[in-house]
Each structure stands twice: as structure tokens, then as C-alpha cells.
């Protein structure tokens, strides 16, 4: 089987949106298994290209939640991602779900046959923050482990 690709989305300077890069750093520190590639992307439009990969693809991103507790790690099929128009909170134009849907339309043969999403629930951002909140920081190890499991296919 082709090696897996873990795509960590987010910005390290934007509070809990930085959980994706934090997970990437954790996997790099652990030493990713042979053949598993870890890449970072600041915004979702990069996914259109990055999900075009023959092996398993794992997207690690923050999930804004109100019902679920911050720090909860969930592994989801991509069908659970919304492809609705830009959500009011997004400031990047395309959501991860929209980018994945675009990739499937533009290059249906090239998109990985197995895409999984590892999401870390974060509280709706309501203030300036330069680092992860305690519950999200505490979830980084579990999210890294979930991403590695999902990357095995």
C-alpha cells in the first residue's frame, strides 16, 4: 500500500486554530513511521492539491464546537465535513469540506481513496489568543496518535 499523508491544518499564532501544527510537531518529535509524510497547511485551499495522493490521507484540523467539550478528539469520514458555503467564522474563503469537494470534482481519480479527518474540538474563539488553551493542548497527544492510526489505512 502507498504510504500515508497526514495534513495538519491551521495557524500556530491563532489560538486553538494552531492545534493542527501542534499535532504535526508532536508527530515529528515522536518520529513518524517509515513512509508516513507529515505536511502543514495554513489554509484549506491547499487541501485541493494535498489530498491528491495514492495512499491514505488524514486531515488534522480544529473543529469549532458548542455541544462537545473542547479537547475532544474525533475521527470522522470526510462525508461528515460540511460543503456548505463559507461559514461565517471562516476567514480563509474555503472550508476543508469545500476544498475536498473541489478536489473530488477537479481530480476524481487522483484523490486518495481513503480520507479521514481527525478533529480536535475547540471552543468558539471569542478573543485574541496566541497559544493553545489548556484542554486543547492536553488533546495534542491523543490527536497525534489518532492521526497515526488513521494514516495506516
Amino acid at each position: 500500500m502507498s504510504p500515508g499523508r497526514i495534513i495538519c491544518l491551521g495557524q500556530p499564532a491563532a489560538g486553538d486554530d494552531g492545534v493542527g501544527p501542534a499535532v504535526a510537531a508532536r508527530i515529528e518529535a515522536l518520529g513518524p513511521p517509515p513512509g508516513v509524510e507529515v505536511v502543514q497547511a495554513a489554509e484549506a485551499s491547499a487541501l485541493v492539491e494535498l489530498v491528491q495522493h495514492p495512499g491514505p490521507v488524514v486531515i488534522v484540523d480544529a473543529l469549532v464546537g458548542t455541544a462537545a467539550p473542547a479537547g475532544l478528539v474525533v475521527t470522522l469520514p470526510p462525508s461528515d465535513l460540511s460543503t456548505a458555503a463559507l461559514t461565517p467564522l471562516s476567514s480563509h474563503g474555503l472550508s476543508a469540506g469545500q476544498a475536498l469537494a473541489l478536489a473530488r470534482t477537479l481530480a476524481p481519480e487522483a484523490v486518495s481513496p481513503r480520507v479521514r479527518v481527525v478533529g480536535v474540538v475547540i471552543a468558539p474563539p471569542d478573543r485574541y489568543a496566541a497559544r493553545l488553551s489548556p484542554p486543547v493542548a492536553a488533546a495534542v497527544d491523543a490527536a497525534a496518535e489518532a492521526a497515526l492510526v488513521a494514516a495506516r489505512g
Partner: protein
Amino acid sequence: MSQRTIHVDYLARVEGEGALTVVFEGEAAKEVRLDIFEPPRFIEGLLRGRDRLEAPDVTARICGICPFSHQLASSLAIERALGVETGPEIRQLRRLIHAGSWIESHVLHAFLLHAPDFLGYPGAIEMSKDHPELVRTALRVKKAGNALCAAVGGREIHPVNLRVGGFWRAPRRDELLPLLPELRWARDAVADLVPALAKLPFPDLERDYELVALLHPDEYPMFEGRIVSSKGLDLDVADYDEHLVEEHVQRSNALHSRLKGGGLFHVGPLARFALAFDRLGPAARAAARQARIDPTLRNPFKTILVRAVEVIEALDEAVRIVEAWQPPAAGFAEVPRRAGRAGWAVEAPRGLLYHAYDVGPDGLLTRAKVVAPTSHNLAIMEDDLIALAPQLARLDHAAATLLAEQAVRNYDPCISCSTHFLTLSVERR
């Protein structure tokens, strides 16, 4: 008389949170409201008491789409306040990253968020099924802009390399040269899209705007020049507060700007294009000719064409700067710790952006003022909808709602920036 209301909760494909309501009496718009309920960010208050060097990093957080413009405006205002002089290489590097921000912002808006309006699709995903090459090209050009911003700014979003006085580190020539092939490809690729864009079905709407933009003596305006208008305004940026005022509108978290005396004005690509057409380079002018637009253009729906022209100008400028790039000995000029007061304006992708600061003798900020392009444009956006009302009144509800949304998207409104700012309702009474 019958009354009808168009109401849109959460405007799609714009940045931030807001709503739009149009109330009709017959074919006339009785009331137009752009309600902005993204929470105010109190950025200006947050800056008071912080060191003058912190302003670019804090103001960059206002928005994920135009952090570069806020960083440039804050840096240049503080430099002016404290008498900091920077060299020609810093100026070129600033023009380079500003060009990168125009490319990524304009391409995202024009080709992925606004083009579906004209082609009859709800969004980019649906449009990509019938126009895959348009979407592929847009994504690749946007990637070239992102790469340029990352190479100069350290990151694609919320850059870390810009500072008051210049850049923490000026990139080496060998770090920028690899960008050239993709920048040249992107310039030609966007030029190839222009003839098709010119054939889009544009609604009729001719407006007698007072267009306001920076005007540089020789170059297409980015962050230098006097503030001029199509109706005679001509002032030094230092005199901004004497001529442009902000007023609070109860329904909105954003302030509305007007000319002193109450006049509405329009900032953005259309204003820059009309006022500085003769400063465009040959490639952008050729694209304008192909798009059949000239400085007399006043149809806001055709701003999508102007954005394409400006992308070509920005790519052309980026190619010129990278080809000639030789880094300076130092990436930044030292910034003294002393008192000062100044404002500065830059042409952000969406138009005129103004920052002003007071610095105390201890180097701490005692006042900050940020007026974003969307704040400048809010009143004229409502006025466009009043002018569009007879057309809206003749359409069924769904079509009227779509056209009203499209009219707002002409401005590529950035709600986060203006609140420091949208939902559409059309009411027919």
C-alpha cells in the same frame, strides 16, 4: 401600496458575519440595512498601552485575508510618527508582499467566490463541474500569491517577518528567484482568462460615485501617495481626519465613513483603476483593453474585471521586483523610543485602509485608529442597493435576493476588518 422585504441571514461568500435587509414600497427601496453583528474587536483599545513595535503583530490578527495590509499600514504610520527612514530595498520588498496579498485576495474573491454569481452557480464547487479549468487556474494562481507572501512574510497568513522599520530578515536573492517561473505563468494565465470574463452577463448599474484612492505620482498606488477623488478631493494623508469622518450606526458594530459634509464615497479596485489607470503597466493595460473597460467604468458589477486587471498588474510588479532583487545590508531601520503622532493609508485589496497612532515618550501607544476599506464602503454599498431597487422589485424573491447579495459581493466586504462589521432581507410593503 404593497410592501416587500428581502432578508438574507448571513451573507455567503463574504468574510465575517452580517445581514442585509431591503424594504420596498412599490419599486422604490424604502429602507436598506447592512446589519453587522460580528462582535466588535476593540482592537484600537487593545493597542493602547502596548509598545509601538507590537502594532503590526496585533493588527495583523484583525483579519486572515488582509494581514499584510494592516501590518504595512501600522508600520508605516508609526515610522512616520517617529521619523524612521527606510531604504529603497525595504520599499521594494513591501511592494512585493503587497502585490502578493492582492494576488491571493483578488483571485480567491474574483474567481472562486464572485464568478459563480455571474455564471449561475451557488458556489465554486458546483461551478468547478462545468468550468474545471477556471477553478484549477485560479487555485494555481492563488498558490503563487500565497508562496510569494510566505517567502517574504514568513507565513501565508498572519506573517511574522514584517515589522516597524522593515523586515526582520530580508530574503536572499536565491530565495526569491525560484518564484519567478510560476509568477510569469500566472500573469499569462490570468491574461488568458480576461476575454471570457469580459463576456459575463453584467447587470446594468451605472453609478455617479465619488471614487477615492491613493494616487502616486508615477506608480499604480499601493501604500504611498495623496488621497484623491474623482470629484476633486486632493489631500495629504496627514489631513485624513480633516476630511473623512466615521459615524456610529445603531444596527451595526461597524462605523460608517463619510466625507465631511456627508458625502458618500467608494474605495477599492474600481477607484484605483479609474484614478490611476495611466499608472498601470503594459500587461494590465492590455488586459483592460481586452476586457473593454477604461477609467470611465462606473458599473460596480464589473469590478470583477478590474480585479483581474489588478492581479495582472500585481504579478507584473512582482516579476519586476524579483528579477532585480538585491537584498539590503540590514532588513530594517532602527525605531527610536520617543513621542510622535501620525497616520498612514495603504491600498489594501478592498481599498483605502487608514491607520493612525499616538506614541508616548516611553514608546507606548496612547491612541490607535483603524479605518478599514469595508467601513469606508458600507454607506455606498447601501446606496448601491437603493439604486438597484427598481431592478430588484421586478424580480421574484429568489432572483432579487441573489442579485442583492451579488451587489454586496461586488465590494468583497471584509466584515472582520470593519468591525472592529453581514444576513439579506428583502421586504416588499
